[in-house]
């Protein structure tokens, strides 16, 4: 399944008199230089964020920026990803990936890109000012910023099936995917520590909004591909994760559940009686064992709901179709659920919310302070700091105390090399090879300006095309002009 993630980072400049997150975001995005061209704009013509998957177009305005701002707020990366400013946050989108392992690699490459930008930007600031970037989801004052996942699905699946099949899964997967948070927000019930960064911000079951009254299932219907064949499911309910193991399982198990929904085997078997209340209850249940009310009167723990999805996967997914990554995800899913059943704290090397809780609990015991102590809150925030010397997660990683999925070298490589098995390959290689002939680009378009007077648009409406296998030869041998003519002449619908 083709998938990608989008991460909005928190940003702050230490010792700056005025905090201007837009200026800080603009500084770091613009100072970043990979080997790709600068000044290429984003092709907004391919976008319409107001189309609703329930079959209507929402009212509202979505104004693309003018040319100058477009180039100022957008950077299209040679790894096929996008680096830009969204509202008042720097945002990194991975290129399209075909599997969970690659996706972890490209999301982690994003952290390196942000950190390289930070270092370059600090050179321009007074010596006492530091840029601080957090890969978390909240400022603990009721302002949340997102971590979104995108999964390419078959258009023929009724949206209602996705809502019914996915909601109980998303509400309960927090026990694996949460990043942990000290305290509560957004008027939700007070607590010392909860599993999810984001749970308190979800107020409705289904809807289009991503910024207010956030829905568990988001209905944005913007496939960035052939809309007759595909939908892009936009999952906005997850946390930003630091742990490779956690990201891997999050996108791995979610893509498996979406396959089950595509096969029509989930239905509404696990319908919860109140998903919006349950998402907050699950986030506060550090045992993961308090039963939730199902619509039909059954009462299941979050672990039992997760296990039921895992059993469906074992039962229905043909073993012959399993890739090594899928098999590994299934094994790790089973492993994590069995450990959660015994004691969640056994996963202190694996899951973000447990790694963080373990560290903070040890501090609290040592110092005899409470969960509301400022140092404790600082630890929560600083777990997500991406700086190698300051980030608590990064320190644990460096000392070899958290599970890894990847080698660091693979992540570094992914900063400047696109995945080879999706259209991101075409995008990334074109940006490197034809920097002077590319005018603009988006997820599903690449616009060439060959002679400076007219524009040639190549539509890439099939995310499985544009791979090294399909276009590798063309890209190796063609000039930009030859490439455009070859593709237009071939009637090859990208």
């Amino acid at each position, binding site marked *: 399944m083709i998938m990608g993630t989008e991460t909005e980072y928190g940003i*702050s400049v230490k010792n700056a008199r005025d905090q201007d997150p837009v200026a800080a975001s603009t500084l770091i995005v613009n100072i970043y230089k990979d080997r790709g061209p600068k000044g290429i704009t984003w092709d907004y013509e391919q976008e319409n964020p107001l189309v609703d998957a329930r079959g209507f177009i929402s009212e509202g305005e979505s104004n693309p920026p003018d040319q100058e701002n477009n180039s100022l707020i957008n950077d299209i990366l040679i790894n096929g990803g996008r680096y830009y400013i969204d509202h*008042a946050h720097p945002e990194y989108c991975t290129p399209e990936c075909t599997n969970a392992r690659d996706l972890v690699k490209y999301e982690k490459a994003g952290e390196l890109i942000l950190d390289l930008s930070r270092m370059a930007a600090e050179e321009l600031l007074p010596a006492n000012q530091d840029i601080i970037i957090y890969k978390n989801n909240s400022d603990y004052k009721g*302002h949340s*910023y997102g971590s979104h996942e995108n999964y390419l699905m078959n258009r023929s699946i009724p949206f209602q099936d996705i809502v019914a099949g996915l909601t109980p899964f998303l509400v309960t997967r927090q026990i694996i995917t949460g990043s942990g948070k000290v305290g509560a927000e957004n008027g939700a019930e007070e607590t010392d520590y909860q599993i999810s960064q984001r749970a308190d911000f979800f107020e409705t079951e289904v809807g289009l909004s991503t910024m207010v009254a956030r829905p568990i299932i988001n209905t944005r219907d913007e496939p960035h591909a052939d809309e007759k064949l595909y939908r892009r499911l936009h999952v906005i309910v997850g946390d930003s994760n630091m742990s490779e193991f956690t990201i891997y399982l999050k996108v791995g198990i979610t893509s498996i559940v979406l396959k089950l929904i595509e096969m029509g085997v989930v239905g509404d078997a696990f319908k919860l009686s109140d998903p919006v209340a349950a998402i907050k209850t699950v986030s506060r249940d550090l045992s993961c064992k308090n039963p939730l009310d199902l619509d039909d009167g059954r009462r299941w723990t979050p672990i039992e709901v997760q*296990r039921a999805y895992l*059993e469906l996967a074992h039962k229905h997914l043909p073993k012959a179709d399993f890739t090594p990554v899928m098999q590994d995800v299934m094994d790790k899913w089973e492993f994590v659920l069995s450990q959660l059943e*015994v004691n969640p704290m056994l996963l202190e090397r694996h899951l973000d919310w447990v790694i963080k809780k373990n560290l903070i609990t040890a501090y609290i015991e040592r110092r005899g302070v409470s969960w509301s102590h400022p140092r404790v809150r600082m630890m929560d925030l600083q777990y997500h700091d991406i700086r190698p010397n300051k980030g608590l997660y990064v320190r644990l990683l460096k000392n070899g105390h958290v599970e890894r999925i990847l080698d660091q070298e693979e992540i570094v490589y992914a900063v400047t090399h696109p995945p080879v098995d999706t259209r991101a390959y075409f995008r990334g290689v074109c940006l490197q090879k034809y920097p002077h002939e590319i005018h603009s680009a988006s997820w599903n378009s690449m616009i060439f300006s060959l002679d400076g007077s007219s524009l040639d648009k190549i539509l890439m409406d099939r995310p499985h095309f544009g791979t090294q296998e399909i276009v590798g030869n063309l890209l190796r041998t063609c000039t930009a002009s030859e490439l455009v003519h070859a593709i237009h002449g071939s009637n090859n619908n990208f």
Partner: protein
Amino acid sequence: MPSEKQQEHKDNLTQDAEEIQPDPEVTEQGEEIKEDLDQLLDEIDEILEEDSEEFVENYIQRGGQ
């Protein structure tokens, strides 16, 4: 990794929690982590932002998606 015993029970939805044992490898790693955490906690005051109260207070973001 799941033990063989757990593998056998994979398909059994009504698995009793009592039957599952902590993974011995995980338990061992857990003991190592304790020492490593101690090491990080020894240094933590130098790592954390100096005036935590003020810092946390001043960390304000605009809402995003």
